[in-house]
């Protein structure tokens, strides 16, 4: 918000003249935004961009599966589906019908730490976008019939992504094993049993507690004038009543004292798999960025140490990869490998452990540091091209860290990481006692007799 320059700003990306790529230092990409706080507590960010006749609107609510209680896992996401089943002036399903039929696109997404809703539309449909988002923030209308319908859809989503896929159970078990605090100790998709237990009353209570303007961040990016758009936003949203602030979630995660292990027999898998995780740190911390750089060196792309060693040299696995997970609370560092037939999980584990030991003993190479920084930069600024990704990113950084300007400073934080930092975090977090390992073994299920009509 300190970036909020003069009231009328039209330039999104500073338009430095392009001179010569060879001699020029990298051009910085700057997103200028203006923050406005409405009387009811809704935080509003606007970014004018007249390069395409498009508007992108995102509304991020400060609620995710971390806020769920025991017995109601999966509820934050099920609730997200209910946000499309009608409000006072919008019929069930009318939201996406209106957006798609006017040339737009939309979605809603839920993770542990937040829930967001967004639409992109031709710029002349700004009023439509504001109407759709404000009507449901004001007046969600829930029936038992609609809840049962989306309960079914969400349960199919779970089957599609977890129960009917190889390694679906693995990921679920891993998350439950890594964490001690319930907030992250369950998946966002939730259990079938808990999804079945969700009631209309739960929906009503959840809406009142979390879907209030003072618990939300609205970001509008695109082809509009700021004064006019802000007037429209006020008209649509400012009369929605504020609610008491929701209770804070205890995110304390105790230190892990010993390695954790589990194995999974998977009837749908055809190859064994090893999943390793180290409990680490919250996102947007110096050690988080150092672990991201470490991950790039260890396991990103064909130049990575694990690809070269396990896929190419030792030929133990067909696939290897991983990432440093970004969370508001304690995130984890993940590595996984899909084994070739005949490889032993213990051999794969020790080959991975050897590579991790090297990271502890000496700093990564200069080219590996450049790889991490350049790859991060390309990915990040490529993402900033679209109005939608800017709207989502500002909403996310504000909700996660109360730091909207992270959209402009994030690459500097990555650039600040040194080779010594990487060595330090390898020693600090990638310890055996801090490790959780899941081994998945394919276990064919016999074919049922009736399959063949005998």
């Amino acid at each position, binding site marked *: 918000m300190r970036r909020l320059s003069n009231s009328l700003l039209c330039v999104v990306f500073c338009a430095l003249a392009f001179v010569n790529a060879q001699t020029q230092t990298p051009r910085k990409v700057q997103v200028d935004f203006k923050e406005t706080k409405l009387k009811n507590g809704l935080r509003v960010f606007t970014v004018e961009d007249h390069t395409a006749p498009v508007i992108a609107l995102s509304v991020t609510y400060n609620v995710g599966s971390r806020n769920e209680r025991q017995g109601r896992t999966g509820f934050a996401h099920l609730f997200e589906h209910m946000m499309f089943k009608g409000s006072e002036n919008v019929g069930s399903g009318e939201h996406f019908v209106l957006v798609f039929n006017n040339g737009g696109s939309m979605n809603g997404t839920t993770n542990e730490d937040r829930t967001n809703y967004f639409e992109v539309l031709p710029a002349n449909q700004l009023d439509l976008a504001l109407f759709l988002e404000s009507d449901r923030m004001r007046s969600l209308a829930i029936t038992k019939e609609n809840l049962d319908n989306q309960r079914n859809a969400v349960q*199919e989503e779970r089957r599609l992504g977890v129960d009917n896929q190889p390694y679906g159970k693995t990921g679920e078990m891993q998350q439950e094993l890594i964490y001690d605090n319930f907030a992250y100790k369950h998946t966002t998709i939730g259990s079938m049993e808990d999804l079945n237990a969700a009631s209309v009353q739960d929906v009503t209570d959840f809406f009142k507690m979390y879907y209030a303007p003072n618990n939300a961040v609205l970001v509008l990016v695109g082809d509009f004038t700021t004064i006019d758009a802000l007037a429209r936003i006020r008209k649509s949203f400012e009369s929605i009543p504020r609610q008491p602030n929701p209770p804070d979630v205890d995110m304390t995660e105790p230190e892990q004292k010993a390695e954790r292990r589990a194995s999974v027999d998977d009837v749908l898998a055809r190859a064994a798999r090893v999943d390793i995780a180290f409990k680490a740190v919250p996102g947007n911390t110096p050690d988080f960025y150092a672990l991201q750089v470490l991950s790039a060196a260890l396991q990103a792309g064909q130049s990575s140490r694990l690809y070269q060693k396990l896929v190419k040299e030792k030929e133990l696995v067909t696939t290897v990869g991983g990432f440093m997970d970004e969370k508001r609370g304690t995130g984890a560092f993940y590595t996984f490998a899909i084994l070739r037939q005949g490889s032993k999980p213990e051999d794969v584990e020790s080959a991975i452990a050897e590579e991790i030991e090297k990271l502890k003993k000496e700093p990564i190479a200069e080219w590996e540091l450049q790889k991490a920084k350049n790859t991060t930069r390309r990915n990040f600024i490529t993402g900033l091209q679209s109005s939608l990704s800017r709207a989502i990113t500002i909403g996310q950084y504000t909700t996660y860290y109360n730091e909207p300007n992270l959209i402009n400073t994030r690459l500097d934080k990555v650039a600040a990481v040194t080779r010594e930092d990487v060595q330090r975090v390898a020693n600090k977090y990638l310890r055996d006692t801090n490790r959780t390992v899941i081994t998945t073994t394919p276990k064919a299920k016999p074919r049922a007799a009736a399959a*063949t009509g005998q």
Partner: protein
Amino acid sequence: MKLTTQIRRLFALLGVITLLCSIALAQGGATGPAGQTTKGAVIKGRAPVNKTILSVKLPKAEEATLPNGTRVMLLENHKVPTFTMQMVILSGGLADKPDYRGLAQFTAALLREGTTTRSSRDIAEQVDALGATLVAGSGLASITTNVSTSGLVENLDQTLDIFADVVRNPTFPQAEVDKYRTRTLQSLQVQRSSPQFLAQEQFSRAIYGNHPGALVAPPAESLKKLSSKDLMEFHSANYRPNNAILAITGDVTLKEIMPKLEKVFGDWKRGDIPTVSIPQAPEQSAQHIFLIDRPGSVQTVLMLGNLGIERTSSDYFPLLLADRILGGGPAARLFLNLREDKGYTYGAYSSFSGSKFRGTWVSSSEVRTEVTEGAMKEFMYELKRLRDEKVTADELENAKRAIIGSFALSLEQPQGLLQNIITQKLYGLPADYWDTYPQKVAAVTVDDVQRVAQKYVDLDKIQIVAVGDASKARDVLAKYGKVEVYDTDGKPVERPAVNK
């Protein structure tokens, strides 16, 4: 313009989960009064909709030609300091010999595994250190091979240098070929654990028989005999400047880029390109029902469809609208019926594709095993309805608004725009094809939609594929005809492997 149904990013447990699968985002949709069996959406009609469809002018690509014949196209985009560059080689899987399917794909896949001056590892390290990407691929029934790179403009020269080296000077070291073969054979096995893969494989086989369109993965026998020499030959014959289009987008100008291209591609030698005859898709056979028994499944993956059109068919625009209304997104009939009304699934969609041979028009969904019967009933209902009844004027109008309106959004997707221009070139479409696209969409009538529905949804010849628990799905499917059961290795199941 190849559209596929099954490219759906399944949510990762550790990632976000969404209201809609991600492919839906790119699509518009259509609705109107929902059908008799569905009340999938309630339209209150109170939201303020601007009736004007924003007309947008699509940017033109600048074009140039290198002295050796390489055609260059550039779409400038100075929003952020990045670029992408795509070398389209006008030979792909369709240039494979009939007894050696996959050669174009293998050649592309192994480009990165060594050149006259760089090892596989050198290439990997240099590309990654620049923060660039470098990928190459060709479909088994594709008319082209694509080699693409993307990167930061401050690293343009170095990235271009590696890109050109990989395109021009690959050596396909035998040791790398051998490693590629063994890991790919293993990956092909792992792929068979995906029910979507199994459904797509069987469906393509049912439609195309011996035509290369049947292949969704390279045959193991091709991989087994693969040698460095074969790849060198394919590369030498087809990777030539007079057989290539270089399409670029990003923070560069033609004035800057041409001398750089001249430097790295200038002495690339022309060649005589082998001619390829495009095999026509076979005539549609009678209806078949295939059931892949996948023990442990809790859902049935359903795919139903027929042969569709060639990309240049005059039925393209009517079919575009018919597909949009049937299943082209969350506002379409299949989604509103099977998900929003019945709660059978997370999503139900249709899609069509068309190349230089006839593509497919297919509807698909994943439904819990217990409702396989209900889902089949609704699929057949919707397909029959599209044939037997005219769509309403409102539905058609909405579908048109969806497609034409989305042109505004496409202006933020330069790579998509560039892809459109490539499509126009590859299929010899008129130069003003994309400029007049909205008018062609607008000209389609409800009669046109019904005509193509009747022409391309042929229920007597529809191919039905189900992947799931055969002990539960078999009897349901048997109501529609004779069911052929296969195991997940593609072998016919004659009798039970194990009695329960």
